[in-house]
């Protein structure tokens, strides 16, 4: 991809200014702390789920492993009902996405459509496994000597182990690594700034397994060919900083730095965190690799360490079960496919007045209709809200154009304008105003004095824009093929006409020839 000349940047007003190369500035990531636009200071509510150490819940009776867990296509299942699977065995794959594995040993009961952990609330293909209780591992293929292993082998191992970003976007890790290596990454940022209220699984992981995170960071750095690693944590996580710094010192790794960032929601967003660490904005439509950076969640780093050093695929994750609707909120290290109801039971069940179950945090999460939905790679939190939590203080009112939403928007968009455009289906304008750059953080929603559900509108609008672009592609293809066919038919017709003309001419010539020969013959006979 062609890069614009780095030293000249056009600023609004048409002037150009000379800046140093942004990639060079980004090398300083973490040395100074910057700010991003907008954002909110929210009540954290994290402590309630951090009181007890993380444990594995008892094995559930049934595990439901969805075949769609990543950004990308639905995985093709390898197994059929009745098959016996071992823990860690690959049960589905979709190129070029990450693989899906059996979380424990047992029998496949069915490969069928079940309720997915997805904002649509729809069903989708899942592999249902009844555990045999033996927890018997498949033969693992660890890479012990990482320092003498090429980055290709490491990246392949990540793909085989089904690694995906555990921060929420579940982008396949190997794809990010391949892109990063190609774009000459210099710094790997590990995102431990878990900014959304209630969620504490990353904090617990950093407290309990800092060595593993540091190991994973070093492996990822090697796979990417990066030079530095910056681990970003929130400023109220004092113990975590000590633990991580100690782990990095033990590993005698000088290029790993642990940086504290101030807690403003949504600084845990990839783009916001990069802005806080470097002072630079990732271009709209661009990727962090444009600045020579790659961002990974701390939980992904820990999972990478397991995948490479032990050969263990991604079959479990830290998950927070919390909210006022849960009797004893806490964190679990749960197998992928564990039904939510099982985790809630292990927490002592619901309190009486639970009203809504949300996957993810209160700002960006989505409600699910049933607690039969399973834990997936993307699920970092199960939040049970009570009637009191979800009660709206006031009915929705018309927009009064106060501009609070634009002041709070971390993507520097104009939510009130976008709301109007989406509502009136002005899609071209909405795209021009940067609707696709919306990160759906919910800040505008939160501050809106008219209680307009702005994020719901933006989610709808983004879906429509995506749909439109797919449809435009399809119509362009149809038009191209139709025109090609018309041209071909015309050419064939012309060719046929030419052929006919030639044949006619030939017959005519032949007839003329015969006539002349007959004439001469006749003449001779006369003579």
């Amino acid at each position, binding site marked *: 991809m062609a890069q614009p000349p780095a030293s000249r940047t056009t600023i609004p007003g048409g002037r150009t200014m000379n800046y140093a190369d942004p990639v060079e500035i980004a090398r300083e990531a973490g040395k100074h702390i910057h700010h991003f636009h907008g954002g909110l200071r929210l009540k954290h509510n994290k402590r309630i789920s951090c009181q007890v150490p993380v444990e594995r819940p008892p094995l559930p009776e049934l595990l439901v492993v969805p075949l769609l867990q990543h950004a990308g296509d639905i995985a093709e299942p390898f197994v059929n009902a009745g098959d016996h699977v071992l823990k860690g065995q690959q049960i589905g794959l979709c190129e070029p996405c990450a693989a899906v594995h059996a979380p424990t040993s047992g029998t496949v009961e069915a490969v069928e459509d079940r309720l997915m952990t*997805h904002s649509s609330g*729809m069903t989708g293909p899942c592999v249902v496994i009844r555990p045999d209780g033996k927890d018997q591992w498949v033969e693992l293929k660890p890479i012990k000597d990482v320092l003498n292993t090429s980055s290709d082998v490491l990246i392949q191992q990540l793909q085989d182990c089904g690694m995906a970003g555990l921060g929420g976007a579940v982008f396949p890790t190997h794809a990010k690594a391949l892109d990063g290596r190609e774009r000459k990454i210099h710094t790997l940022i590990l995102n431990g700034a878990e900014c959304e209220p209630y969620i504490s699984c990353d904090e617990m992981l950093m407290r309990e397994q800092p060595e593993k995170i540091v190991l994973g960071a070093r492996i990822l750095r090697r796979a990417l060919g990066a030079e530095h690693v910056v681990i970003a944590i929130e400023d109220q996580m004092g113990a975590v900083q000590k633990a991580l710094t100690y782990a990095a010192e033990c590993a005698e790794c000088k290029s790993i730095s642990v940086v504290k960032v101030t807690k403003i929601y949504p600084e845990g967003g990839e783009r916001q965190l990069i802005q806080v660490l470097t002072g630079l904005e990732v271009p709209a439509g661009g990727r962090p690799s444009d600045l020579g950076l790659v961002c990974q969640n701390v939980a992904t780093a820990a999972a990478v360490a397991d995948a490479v050093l032990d050969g263990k695929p991604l079959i479990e994750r830290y998950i927070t079960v919390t909210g006022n609707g849960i009797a004893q909120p806490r964190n679990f290290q749960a197998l992928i496919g564990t039904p939510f109801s099982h985790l809630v039971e292990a927490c002592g069940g619901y309190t009486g007045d639970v009203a809504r179950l949300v996957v993810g945090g209160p700002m960006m999460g989505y409600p699910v209709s049933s607690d039969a939905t399973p834990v997936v790679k993307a699920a970092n939190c199960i939040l049970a809200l009570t009637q009191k939590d979800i009660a709206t203080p006031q009915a929705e*009112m018309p927009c009064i154009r106060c501009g609070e939403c634009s002041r709070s928007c971390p993507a520097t968009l104009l939510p009130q304008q976008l709301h109007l455009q989406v509502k009136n289906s002005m899609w071209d304008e909405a795209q021009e105003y940067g609707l696709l750059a919306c990160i759906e953080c919910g800040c505008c929603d939160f501050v809106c004095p008219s209680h307009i559900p702005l994020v719901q509108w933006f989610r709808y609008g983004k879906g429509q824009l995506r749909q439109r672009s797919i449809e435009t592609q399809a119509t362009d293809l*149809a038009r191209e*093929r139709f025109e090609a066919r018309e041209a071909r038919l015309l050419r064939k017709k012309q060719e046929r006409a030419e052929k006919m003309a030639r044949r006619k001419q030939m017959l005519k010539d032949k007839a003329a020839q015969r006539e002349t020969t007959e004439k001469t013959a006749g003449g001779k006979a006369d003579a």
Partner: protein
Amino acid sequence: MLIAIATLTVLGLAFGLGLGWAGIRLKVKTDPVVDRIDALLPQTQCGQCGFPGCRPYAEAISKEEADINQCPPGGEAGIRALADLLGREEKPLNPENGEEKSKTVVVIDELRCIGCTLCIQACPVDAIVGAAKLMHTVIESECTGCNLCLPPCPVDCIDIVEVETGIRQWRSPRPAEQQYLAAAR
């Protein structure tokens, strides 16, 4: 006086030459209105409008030989877009041309197909592959759902199917619109 006349004449000649040159050099070969109308049509190439394809229909609209409400696959949204572009009055879809339906594609039952190639010849977007006396099949991603292959098939081996709407095709729904007046009272 003479100078003024001479100046204006020279200026007139210079601009005239410039315009003449621009007229030849910068000439737009195709009618841009046709292209813009064509861009709004769904490119199904189904011929329900009475023209052999979307582009011929676009040409007819631009010459005002056809009305804007003859395209069932485009539906109400398509008519609205055309009305906006051409500054004409919006009107309901002409029922003579058919009715708006959700998108479908066709599949060939390969067991019943005798390999006559009639459907291949009928397909306006070359979305069917096959050869004489050999099995045919539809490339689903390229099928526009025009159903023009159905009538020529001598053994009725082509079926219309709804396009799959799984979890990957799901889009966030439109939020409920608020009735502000009632709330304000």
